[in-house]
């Protein structure tokens, strides 16, 4: 769906002579990135509205996408699978935030924060077959992932100390989802090497 929309956008731009024929593929890729982020942001906001945690949902989505961009992780092989999995992951995360807010949980999210951070620090960055990284890039993105993770963890702890638990939960949820994607990506890589 997003691919077709991206192709349509590039076709429209081609009509206006904004994009050369040989650059079409590149711009379809660019629009895909743009539209997919916008689509999942909108979806997360809708979930946030439904669960009554809009601010938390937006914060979760921003921290997650920034972290995911540099840390990497598992990828679906087909666009349709991706749309379903990402939509489901966003729904579960927003529902988890809602659950934590309602039950005022502290201990469980704190344990998850520690475990997720360890996972991210050990496994990132994890590239994919579709976009391989060079050693130099891996070093650079590892540093960036460490910085972003430190920032999110610091924000989460600060929010907890200040009693702003509604900001604490989205930070923990984004770290948790990213760590799960990294573990899944690593497992997928190991399994495909064995086969």
């Amino acid at each position, binding site marked *: 769906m997003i*691919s077709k929309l991206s192709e349509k*956008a590039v076709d*429209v*731009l081609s009509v*206006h002579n*904004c*994009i050369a024929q040989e*650059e079409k*593929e*590149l*711009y379809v*890729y*660019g*629009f*895909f*990135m*743009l539209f*997919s*982020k916008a689509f*999942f942001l909108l979806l997360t906001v809708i979930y946030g509205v439904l669960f009554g945690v809009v601010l938390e949902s937006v914060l979760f989505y921003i921290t*997650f*996408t920034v972290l*995911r*961009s*540099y*840390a*990497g*992780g*598992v*990828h*679906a092989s*087909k*666009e349709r*699978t*991706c*749309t379903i*999995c*990402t939509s489901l*992951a966003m729904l579960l995360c927003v529902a988890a935030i809602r659950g934590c807010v309602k039950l005022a949980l502290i201990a469980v999210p704190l344990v998850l924060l520690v475990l997720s951070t360890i996972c991210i620090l050990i496994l*990132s*960055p*994890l*590239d*994919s077959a*579709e*976009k391989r*990284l*060079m050693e*130099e*890039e891996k070093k650079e*993105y590892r540093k960036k992932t460490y910085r972003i993770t430190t920032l999110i963890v610091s924000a989460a702890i600060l929010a907890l100390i200040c009693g702003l638990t509604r900001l604490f939960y989205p930070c923990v949820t984004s770290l948790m989802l990213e760590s799960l*994607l990294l573990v899944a990506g690593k497992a997928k890589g190991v399994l495909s090497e064995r086969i």
Partner: protein
Amino acid sequence: MKNIKMAAAKAAKSAAESALKRNANSTTCGALYQPKAPAGLNRFKNKQK
């Protein structure tokens, strides 16, 4: 009207280029599906290798 359409087309192109630049300088995209990166993506990298 034609000018407005051209301006909108240029703005859209610029937004796509920003997305390309962000993607070229990161490990992956935000979603769970990563399409095959086109060869032309390298020219959007900050450091040309």
